[in-house]
């Protein structure tokens, strides 16, 4: 496996909050191109924090993170380059309420990649169709349901043509009926070959889509294994305890 296949390479990442609390303890992770990694763990385990170091939304004090060959350090140009290639979907959707759905998608490609508006518009409309929001292109986020908003959020991230997609508990804020429509979109995305790192509690999704499942607890990466092994034959005591709680 050559290093050009490695999309994310995180080694020994340590993070302390200003109040002294250590959120990440020597966390390691490798994500290859086209791989789907699901990160699970109890609340407060640092899984969201770890995810957010991959696109510099969280900084870290120790260790290294290399995304698509670009090192995450103090170089602002690196940070900008990484953010262009990494798409993120948030638990609270975070759509821009003052812009229409279509404009939400157009904003970044036009202003960051400097692409002509008409061209991006075509692509955006196609993406909206793909996630099933085609007819709502001119509506505003406030007029959509939670599930619809999250699908728009996914389309918005995809419109930047990222190489990696990060999902931070994408369905945790949704009503149970809406969870499925979002997972369907994510599943399709996975089958289309996108490299994905997903923090979630959805075991069904992990079993079906993940290439590897990661357990995090108290800031450490405890276990990394394919779903078959992770759910049926966990190696670590903490993994067993966690699975006992959620299954």
């Amino acid at each position, binding site marked *: 496996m050559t290093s050009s296949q490695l999309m994310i390479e995180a080694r020994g990442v340590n993070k302390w909050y200003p109040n002294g609390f250590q959120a990440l303890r020597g966390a390691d992770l490798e994500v290859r191109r086209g791989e789907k990694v699901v990160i699970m763990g109890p609340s407060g385990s640092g899984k969201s924090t770890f995810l957010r170091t991959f696109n510099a939304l969280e900084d870290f004090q120790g260790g290294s993170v290399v995304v698509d060959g670009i090192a995450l350090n*103090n*170089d*602002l*140009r690196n*940070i900008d380059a990484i953010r262009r290639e990494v798409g993120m979907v948030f638990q609270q959707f975070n759509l821009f309420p003052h812009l229409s759905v279509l404009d939400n998608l157009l904003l970044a490609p036009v202003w960051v990649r400097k692409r002509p508006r008409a061209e991006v518009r075509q692509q955006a409309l196609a993406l909206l169709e793909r996630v099933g929001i085609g007819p709502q292109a001119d509506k505003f986020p406030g007029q959509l349901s939670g599930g619809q908003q999250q699908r728009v959020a996914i389309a918005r991230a995809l419109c930047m043509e990222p190489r990696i997609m990060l999902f931070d508990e994408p369905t945790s804020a949704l009503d149970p009926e809406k969870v499925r429509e979002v997972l369907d979109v994510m599943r399709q995305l996975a089958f289309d070959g996108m490299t994905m790192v997903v923090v979630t509690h959805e075991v069904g999704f992990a079993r079906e889509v993940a290439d590897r499942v990661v357990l995090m607890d108290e800031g450490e990466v405890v276990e990394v294994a394919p779903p078959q092994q992770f759910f049926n034959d966990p190696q670590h005591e903490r993994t067993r305890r966690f699975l006992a709680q959620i299954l």
Partner: protein
Amino acid sequence: MTALPWWRDSRKVGWLVQAAVGLGLLLVVALLLSNLEHNLTRAGLRLTLGWLNQPAGFDIAETLLPYRASDSYGRALLAGLVNTLRVVGIGLVLATGLGVVAGAASFSTNPLLRGLSRTYVEVVRNIPLLLQLVFWYFAVFLTLPPANQALQLPGLQLAKSGVYLLGARLVNGELVGGWRLSLELAALLTGLVIYSAAFIAEVVRGGIASVPKGQWEAAESLGLKPLATLRLVVLPQALRVIVPGLNSQYISLAKNSSLAVAIGYPDLYAVAETTLNQTGRGIEVFLLLMAVYLGLDLCISVLMNGLERLVSLKDR
């Protein structure tokens, strides 16, 4: 590893921006100060406070503090300050009273009272204070009849020579005795109180409205009349929202007292202006004024913060 240029280094960018801004500000201030120095020496004035001891040489129309024209500038300014404190003190009390009444009245069951309160607030808030002040002074108080035809109101007698409270009697065509307020002070208080009370009424109204309707209903079901409910149940809870709002209104009132200069009441600002005109000591006078007003604001804020804590402690 090659060093990062500073504009790309996330650690350094912040410091360098601050350095640039800081340097810029320092340059501007240095420039202004050097101009100041140059112009002051040319005019023969150096920054000092010694001139405060020189005799003032002007009269102050009314003072609580004993003052004569031969007293020092320092004493003159002090007299002005006392005048300001007098207006602010009385004004705060009266404005709060009127404001609370008007604010509570907007919840009355009587539509006339409600309408009157709303109209009062909506009219007064949208007319500039200075206009109201000059109106009261020139169009109302200056047109009062002479002492022997003084206007009689319960407890008040209004005449050209002043406003008399609590029992003044007519002696040889003049009114003597009782408490006398000069026309200037009376007009200033009237305008200031009416204006400030309108805003205080809004704060009170907002505070009372913030108390959940359930409180009213519970009190009613216990048999309390509306007025008692207001006094015993709603107002104490509303105070938590009202007190911070009152803080800013009180500070506004204190600052607005400086408009006294427009109608001839010798408050601190008016005396300071006269002092400046006579001594030419612009910078010192200005700094003194700022210090006093900022100090006054601070005192009011500290008092109101203490009150806030008092009000919330009582709940627990």
